[in-house]
C-alpha cells in the first residue's frame, strides 16, 4: 500500500516536471568567474525572469584560464551555452570554430547598433554580420597619486595634459636613494600590464604613425613613428630615469603601495584601487601629444549566441541578449562591476560625465581604438620582448622594433592561415 502511494507520488512528480519543462524554456548563459560579474549577472537574470516568466536562465561559470577550452569542448559534445560571453579578440577563432552565430537582424538591426553603441562595437562585425554585443567596455586612463604630487610641489587638481607635462611631472615625483636606486617611481613601466596598449594604439599614433593597416592584418610600426614611440618609452628608464621596468614587481603594485606617482591602467583596476587607504588618487585622460592628438585603447567582452541554438531557445536567447545589452542592464553593470556602459545613451549621462573617475574613461571611448588581436598573449609578448631587448641587451630601438614587427607579423599570418 505504502509502496503504491510512493509510486503514485513519483509519477505525479515526473509528469508535473514534464509538463513544466514543455512550457518553459531554459537557456544557459556562460561567463568566466569574476565575483562582481557573477553578482551583476545574477541580478540581471532575476530582472529578466520577472519580465519573462516563461523563460529561465541558468548561469554557468568557469575559471578564466579554462573558459575558452570549456566552450570549445562543450560545443564539440553539443552541449554548449545558448548565450555566452566572449572577448572581442576571440571572435575570429570562435567564428572559425563554429561556436557563435550572426545576430539575427530582426532583433538587432545594424543601423540601431551603429547609432546607439560606441564605434568600437565594429570589432564584433565580420562581413555583413554582427556576432555579439557588449554590455560594458573598458578604456585606459592615467591614474595619479595626489599625495606624491603635492609633496613634489605639483597641483593635484591639474594633472598632466600633454606628454611633455607627463614627463615633467614624472621627473618631479621620482625619488632615488643615495646609491641611485629608485625608491619612488615617477611613472610605472609595465609592458606586461597596459603599457603595450598605450605604446601600440596611442604613442605610435601620436608620433605620426599607425600600428597596423585598417584591418589589422599588417604590422605598420616598423618605421620612424614606431621607433620614436619606443624610444620615448625606454628613455623614461634610461634617460629621464623616472620609471623602471619591474620596479615593485608590477606597475599596479607600485602604485597601490604609494611608490609610483602615475600609472596607466584600465577601468577594471578601479575596484582594486578603490580600497587604497593611504593616499588619495585621481584619474585623468591619457596625455595628448604637442599637436593635441588623443588616442586610447578600448576593449570589451561581448555576448553572443551559440551557433547551434535554434527554435524557441533562439527566441529566448534573442530576448535575453537584448535585455543584457539594454541601457538598464548597463546601469546595473556599471554599479556592480564598475565597467562603462557600451551604449552612448547609458554612458554619456550627466551624472557619469560629472563623475571625476568615470568621465576620463568615458571621454576616451569616442576616440579609442580596439586592436584586433589574433593571439593577445603572444602579441603582447612581442612588445614585452621589444622593450626588454633595448633595456636589458642594449639593442638599438631601430633593430628591436624591426625584430618585433617581423615576429608579430608571423603571428598574425599564422592565425590567418588556420
Amino acid at each position, binding site marked *: 500500500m505504502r509502496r503504491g502511494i510512493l509510486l503514485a507520488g513519483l509519477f505525479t512528480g515526473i509528469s508535473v516536471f514534464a509538463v513544466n519543462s514543455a512550457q518553459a524554456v531554459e537557456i544557459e548563459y556562460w561567463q568566466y568567474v569574476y565575483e562582481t560579474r557573477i553578482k551583476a549577472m545574477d541580478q540581471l537574470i532575476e530582472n529578466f525572469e520577472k519580465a519573462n516568466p516563461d523563460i529561465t536562465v541558468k548561469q554557468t561559470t568557469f575559471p578564466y*584560464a579554462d573558459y*575558452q*577550452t570549456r566552450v*570549445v569542448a562543450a560545443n564539440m559534445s553539443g552541449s554548449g551555452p545558448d548565450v555566452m560571453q566572449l572577448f572581442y579578440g576571440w571572435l575570429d*577563432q*570562435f567564428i*572559425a*570554430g*563554429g*561556436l557563435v552565430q550572426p545576430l539575427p537582424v530582426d532583433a538587432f538591426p545594424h543601423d540601431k547598433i551603429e547609432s546607439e553603441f560606441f564605434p568600437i562595437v565594429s570589432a564584433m562585425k565580420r562581413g555583413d554580420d554582427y556576432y555579439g554585443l557588449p554590455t560594458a567596455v573598458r578604456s585606459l586612463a592615467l591614474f595619479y597619486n595626489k599625495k606624491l604630487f603635492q609633496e613634489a610641489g605639483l597641483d593635484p587638481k591639474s594633472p598632466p595634459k600633454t606628454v611633455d607635462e607627463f614627463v615633467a611631472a614624472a621627473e618631479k615625483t621620482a625619488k632615488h*636613494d643615495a*646609491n641611485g*636606486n*629608485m*625608491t619612488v617611481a615617477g611613472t610605472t613601466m*609595465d*609592458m*606586461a*600590464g597596459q603599457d603595450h596598449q598605450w605604446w601600440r594604439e596611442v604613442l605610435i599614433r601620436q608620433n605620426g604613425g599607425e600600428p597596423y593597416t585598417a584591418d589589422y592584418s599588417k604590422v605598420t610600426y616598423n618605421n620612424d613613428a614606431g621607433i620614436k614611440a619606443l624610444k620615448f618609452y625606454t628613455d623614461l628608464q634610461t634617460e629621464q630615469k623616472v620609471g*623602471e*621596468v*619591474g*620596479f*615593485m*614587481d*608590477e606597475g599596479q603594485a607600485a602604485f597601490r603601495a604609494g*611608490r609610483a606617482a602615475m600609472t596607466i591602467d584600465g577601468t577594471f583596476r578601479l575596484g582594486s584601487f578603490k580600497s587604497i587607504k593611504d593616499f588619495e588618487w585621481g584619474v585623468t585622460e591619457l596625455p595628448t601629444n604637442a599637436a593635441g592628438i588623443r588616442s586610447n585603447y578600448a576593449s570589451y567582452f561581448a555576448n553572443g549566441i551559440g551557433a547551434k541554438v535554434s527554435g524557441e531557445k533562439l527566441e529566448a536567447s534573442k530576448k535575453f541578449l537584448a535585455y543584457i545589452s539594454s541601457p538598464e542592464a548597463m546601469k546595473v553593470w556599471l554599479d556592480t562591476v564598475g565597467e562603462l556602459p557600451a551604449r552612448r545613451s547609458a554612458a554619456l549621462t550627466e551624472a557619469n560625465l560629472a563623475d571625476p573617475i568615470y568621465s576620463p574613461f568615458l571621454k576616451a571611448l569616442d576616440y579609442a581604438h580596439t586592436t584586433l588581436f589574433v*593571439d593577445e*598573449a*603572444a602579441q603582447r*609578448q612581442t612588445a*614585452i*620582448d621589444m622593450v*626588454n*631587448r633595448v633595456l*636589458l*641587451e642594449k639593442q638599438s630601438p631601430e633593430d628591436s622594433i624591426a625584430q618585433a614587427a617581423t615576429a608579430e607579423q608571423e603571428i598574425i599570418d599564422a592565425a590567418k592561415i*588556420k
Partner: protein
Amino acid sequence: MRHKRLIWVWTFLALPILFYCVIRFYPTLQAFYLSFTNWNLMKPPKFIGFANYVKLYNDPQFWKVFRNTFTYLIIGTPVSLLISFVISFYLDRVRILHGLIRALYFLPFLTTAAAMAWVWRWFYQPAPIGVINDVLGLIGLPQQAFIRSVDQALPSIMVTSIWAGLGFQIIIFMAGLRAIPSTYYEAAKIDGLGEWPILWKITLPLLKPTTVFLVVFSSIGFLRIFDQVYNMTTNDPGGPLGSTKPLVLMIYQTAFSSYNMGYAAAQTVVLFAILLAVSLLQLWILRERK
C-alpha cells in the same frame, strides 16, 4: 589454490591497469597522433605529416628553450645531489635536535611550489622591497637584477628549485646511509682506515642504489621544471626574453595560450623522447657492473 590467488591478484590489478590505460596510455598515444596534425581545438585535426617537427626544428625559440632545459638539468641535478649528500652525511652524525633539523630541511618540500616561488620572487626584487638586495645594500655591495636580468634569471630560479627539492633528497640519502650495516664501519676502523677512504670505499659504493634513484628522479624533475619558472615570471612567462623558459612552459603556452594543440603535441613528443633518452642513459652509466 595458487590459481585462485592469481585471479584475485589480477582482479585487484585490473582496475589500476584499466585506469592507467584510459587516462595515461591512451592520451599518450593520442598525443603522438596529434603531433602530426594541425589541431587548434576549433576545427577537427587535419593530418599534416612532419610539418610540426620541421617547424620546431627551425624555431629559434625552441633551441633557446632546449638549451635552458638542459642548463636546469646539467647544473641542477649534480649541485642538488652534492648539497643534499653533504647535508645528510653530516646530519646523520648529529644526535642533538636531529629530528628538528631534519624536519626543517624537509619543510620546503611540503610547501606548495607556487607559494614558495612567489616568496622568492619578492626576495629577488630591487632595493626597497627585495630582502636580498637590501642586505647587499647594507654591506655595501652593488644591487643585483636577479630575475630581471637575462644572465642571472635562470640561476636565480634554479636556486629556489634546488632548495625546494633538497628536503626530499636529504631524507632519501639519510635512509640510504642508515641502511649501510654498521659492521662495515667497525671493521674498517679496526683496520685503521681514515675518514676519506671510508667515504670512498664503503659509504659511496654502498649508497649507489640510492644515488641512482635520486639522479634519475631529480633529472626528470629538472627536465619537467615548470611551477617555479611560471610563478616567478607570470607577467612575462619564461622571461626576460625567454631566458628562463623551459620546454614544459613552451608546451603550456603553445597549447593553452595560442591553442596550437598539434604543435604543442609535437613538443610534448620531443620532451618525452628526451626524458626517455636521459633516463636510459643514466641507468646505463650507473648500472651495476658485475
